[in-house]
């Protein structure tokens, strides 16, 4: 973030966002990969939204006459599975699940994690101690194992998988918001706002949040990819979304039984997953480079 936009950050949010928009558009023109990735993601989101219209209701009913057809036969672009169901249609429905999980988990984790992290960073005290201990525990605990355990206890299904990922994922936001707040807290404009008697809510929303939002946005894009892959891995392991509802991860694991006869069942849903994750990461890298040249990982 440039010094100019930092200085403006506390006072005028509108001017900053307009400059930022121009900055984003200009850098998008220079980065063809980011443009392609964004367009691709847009297409996937659109497909996810429209999938109930695009895909007939009968998609999950078996049709044993057309079992395991390879791609591009009888109008099945991506072939059919062991029950004769159209793989392409199921992949479109799977996009809906992946996108819902990616979007909701990131928004919910941020909504929970960021306020807690800001409070801990600003006030310190017992909340800070508790948060840092939680961070330690979370670091000592494989994320996927935590997610699986919560999922096994709460029960399976899309709603619970989102809850699971939020429980496992909010700490990351809290950790980053805390660290950034610790730095911003010491800046003159925050001190000044405090001294002039601004209410705490105002200090948090108008002075601290605008100045810590950039790393949070960058982290969010990376988290989207992480959460989507986590959901797919959990579904692959047999937890999470249950059949016949198609999720990309469970489609791969169901296809694994037919690895000797039907390559498309395991390759195509996984490819969709990898492409989405790749596009999200490329977009995230581009956002990071454009918004915040300070961060280099």
């Amino acid at each position, binding site marked *: 973030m440039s010094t100019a936009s930092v200085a403006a950050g506390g006072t005028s949010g509108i001017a900053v966002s307009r400059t930022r928009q121009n900055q984003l558009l200009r850098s998008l023109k220079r980065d063809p990969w980011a443009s392609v990735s964004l367009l691709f993601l847009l297409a996937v989101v659109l497909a996810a939204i429209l999938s109930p219209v695009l895909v007939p209701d009968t998609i999950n009913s078996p049709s044993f006459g057309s079992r395991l057809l390879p791609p591009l036969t009888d109008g099945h672009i991506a072939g059919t599975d062991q029950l004769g169901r159209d793989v392409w249609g199921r992949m479109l429905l799977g996009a809906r699940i992946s996108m819902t999980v990616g979007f909701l988990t990131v928004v919910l984790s941020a909504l929970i994690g960021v306020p807690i992290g800001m409070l801990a960073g600003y006030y310190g005290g017992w909340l800070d101690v508790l948060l840092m201990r939680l961070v330690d525990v979370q670091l000592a605990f494989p*994320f996927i194992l935590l997610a699986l355990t919560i999922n*096994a206890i709460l029960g399976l299904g899309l709603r619970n998988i989102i809850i699971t990922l939020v429980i496992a994922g909010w700490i990351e936001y809290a950790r980053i918001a805390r660290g950034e707040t610790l730095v911003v807290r010491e800046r003159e404009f925050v001190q000044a706002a405090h001294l002039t008697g601004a209410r705490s809510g105002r200090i948090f929303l108008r002075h601290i949040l605008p100045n810590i939002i950039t790393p949070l946005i960058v982290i969010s894009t990376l988290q989207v990819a992480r959460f989507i892959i986590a959901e797919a891995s959990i579904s692959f392991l047999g937890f999470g979304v249950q059949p016949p509802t198609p999720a990309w991860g469970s489609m791969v694991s169901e296809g694994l039984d037919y690895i000797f006869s039907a390559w498309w069942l395991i390759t195509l849903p996984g490819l969709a997953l990898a492409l989405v994750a790749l596009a999200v990461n490329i977009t995230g890298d581009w956002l990071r480079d454009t918004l915040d040249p300070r961060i280099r990982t």
Partner: protein
Amino acid sequence: MKGYVLGRLASGLIVIFLALTAVFFMLRLSGDPVLLFAPMDTSRTNLEEIRERMGFNEPLAVQYATFMGDAIQGDFGESTRERRPAIEIVLERLPATLQLGGLALVISLSVGIPLGILSATHHGSVWDKVARLIAVLGQAIPGFWLGVLLMLLFAVQLNWLPTSGRGGVQHIILPAITLSALSTARYARLTRSTMLDVLGQDYMRTAKAKGLSNGTVLWRHALKNASISLITMTGLEIGRLIEGAVVIEQVFAWPGMGRVTVQALLNRDFAVVMAAVVLFAAMYTLANLVADLTYGWANPQVKLG
């Protein structure tokens, strides 16, 4: 130094204690814990009997104290499926996981670091492009799918290697490569960026100006300084490998701790799950401690304690 190690061990124990507490309360928060421990088809009267036997009728504080007291002695209860101590079931899978994780770590270190160095010293070359491509793909490709792809190619199509199980050397190749892939990408990425940083430093120019050979400059000056961040990363990386193993072991039916945990979760065998959780947390804490100690050794500026 000794105080530091003891302190770190103590905080590691606190973390494990907190992890156990979290699992204990998560199991209780789910409503009726007996439903989690009893087999699906248990009748009502049997449920009461199990509830009594497992102490779920006791006050929560008593249950917690008993649970912790047993856990400290390594007793996490009996597996509901196999009718023997849960810790035993998990411990006998430990060697398989250590073998797989260890090999994966060796692969990622010995591929990722040279790749990162090549990419930094030949900035903009083909090597650089390859390393960056691997780093980008490694971040995006889900581990389980990479495993499935490798299986499809090398086990099914080419028939060079077995699809799953544990046995000879040929069995470990595919899972180890799959597990190491993400790690390799991260090592290549980190080595590249730290080496680029180090190569731009003044002391590097001095070393070259003194007329030292390229090899000496690279090994004695650049790599030694870059190694500090690599060591820190290895502590974290071991944790990530453990996490990856949970999924990859399932793909290749590798009989390690990850697979036994996933199976236990699917079978709702929570005694085994808890034993595994503690063991995972312990491995992770230990790995980070070793990384910290090595860090102090590689970088004398860091005072431990």
